[in-house]
């Protein structure tokens, strides 16, 4: 293992906010970014001028980027990041912002992902998502990630004996978790295993409830010093360990693991904790197979035992098993573009600071969050994970 990275000492994660979610919106991404920034400063009780660092992720802001938002929203940060890493955006923003606060490059960093959703816009996005997919995937009718993840899902199911019923258990548990969450688009649509199994096919073996619903929305949080959080009277979470890895295991012909496996030892070594110490896990659930792979790679069950894990482990918030995607995840909240890469992290901060929007885990002390982003050809390339802990008041 490489040298252990410096600890994230003294850094606080505060003010988890969510704007939306809405199935479609006439507003642009900038509207959602502005609403998120406004919510962040109100929640923290700070002035807009106090925000001297700004990290933004969006798929639907073009031709603008983060820098245009400084003019649009009237801020003058001395630290700026545009993070186009999709489902890994939140964790990557958190890592970089934490280092900026430690180094004194910024005192308060607003981390935001914001995207809108308009009819037809999804087609335009997926048609030009990457050069490789434009040339070698989209021309086959396979616009968007469904075909890519259908291939990954079938391979994983046949390799490890995981069934649709097993994935259905994960999806049904997430819908139960969503039921009390006012932000979840599908909170009022209970899902039974029977309905999951009977849903129409999208890309075999994927069916309707294996796929996320594109929507509009934003998520965000603030990164500042623990001293500042305490002086503002804000409950906060801390970073016990954090990792990212891109283009991991490129030699695997079909991925059955991701960069989480490559970085797991470093993550838990930094944290001084193991999977057994986690009170919950938030994974990036663009498809259930990817959540299962993250839970596996993060060490919650041995490689290949996913079917047994899903049959034995309740994944609901108060089910006595492993609370997973406790807000309902993207499969129940919707996928608001890059905000899908923030949702799990924002939910983890909520759970660790006593601010759960929906079902709360009793006495949550530690949780692990993972991200997965950017289908460039036949898999997502960005992976990230963090162990977070509850901050001492």
């Amino acid at each position, binding site marked *: 293992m490489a040298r252990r990275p410096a600890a994230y000492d003294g850094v606080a994660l505060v003010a988890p906010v969510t704007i939306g979610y809405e199935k479609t919106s006439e507003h642009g991404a900038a509207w959602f970014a502005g609403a998120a920034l406004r919510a962040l400063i109100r929640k923290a009780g700070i002035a807009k001028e106090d925000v001297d660092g700004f990290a933004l992720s969006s798929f639907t802001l073009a031709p603008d980027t983060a820098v245009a938002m400084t003019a649009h929203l009237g801020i003058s940060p001395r630290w700026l990041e545009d993070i186009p890493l999709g489902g890994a955006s939140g964790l990557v923003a958190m890592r970089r912002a934490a280092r900026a606060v430690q180094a004194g490059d910024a005192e308060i960093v607003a981390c935001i992902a914001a995207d809108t959703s308009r009819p037809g816009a*999804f*087609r335009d996005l*997926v*048609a030009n998502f990457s*050069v*490789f997919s434009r*040339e*070698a*995937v*989209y*021309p*086959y*009718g*396979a*616009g*968007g990630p*469904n*075909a890519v993840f*259908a*291939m*990954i899902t*079938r*391979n994983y199911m*046949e390799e490890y004996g995981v069934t649709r019923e097993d994935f259905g258990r994960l999806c049904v548990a997430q819908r139960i978790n969503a039921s009390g969450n006012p932000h979840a688009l599908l909170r009022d649509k209970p899902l039974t295993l029977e309905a999951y199994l009977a849903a*129409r*096919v*999208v*890309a*075999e*073996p*994927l069916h309707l409830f294996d796929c996320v619903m594109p929507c509009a929305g934003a998520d965000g949080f603030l990164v500042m010093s623990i001293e500042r959080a305490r002086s503002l009277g804000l409950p906060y979470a801390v970073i016990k360990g954090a990792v990212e890895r891109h283009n991991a295991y490129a030699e695997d*012909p*079909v991925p059955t693991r991701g960069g989480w496996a490559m970085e797991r030892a470093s993550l838990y070594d930094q944290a001084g904790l193991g999977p057994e110490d986690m009170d919950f896990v938030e994974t990036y659930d663009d498809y259930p197979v990817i959540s299962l792979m993250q839970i596996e790679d993060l060490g919650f069950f041995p490689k290949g035992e996913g079917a047994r894990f899903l049959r034995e482990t309740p994944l609901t918030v108060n089910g006595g098993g492993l609370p997973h995607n406790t807000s309902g995840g993207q499969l129940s909240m919707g996928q608001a573009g890059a905000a899908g890469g923030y949702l799990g992290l924002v939910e983890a901060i909520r759970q660790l600071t006593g601010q759960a929007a929906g079902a709360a885990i009793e006495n949550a002390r530690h949780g692990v969050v993972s991200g997965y982003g950017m289908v460039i*050809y*036949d898999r997502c390339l960005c992976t990230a994970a963090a162990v977070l802990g509850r901050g001492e008041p």
Partner: protein
Amino acid sequence: MTAPLMLQHCAECGAVQYPRREACMRCLSPDLQWRETPGGGTLLSHTALHVSVDAKWQDRLPVRLALVRLDAGPVVYALAAEDLTRRGMRVTVTRGDDDLLQAGREE
């Protein structure tokens, strides 16, 4: 009508790559040559798309697709014959009229 596969070969290290790149993914050489490449390979996975965002495909659903590991190295998506249903089976990939790759059972 089908045509043989043409793929990028690195003139320095011999790596074969797809999709096309501007540098060799192994040795970073810019000296890449298009060469006729054997289409033999192994079926890694397969699907049938019942939904497509591309209007061009909407009246041709379901679209059967194969994911193939070519013996030459790269992994490709290809339109699939109906009998490609078993992971690990031998397949042959060719280039069709529309320049799309297509996969059939190896003869």
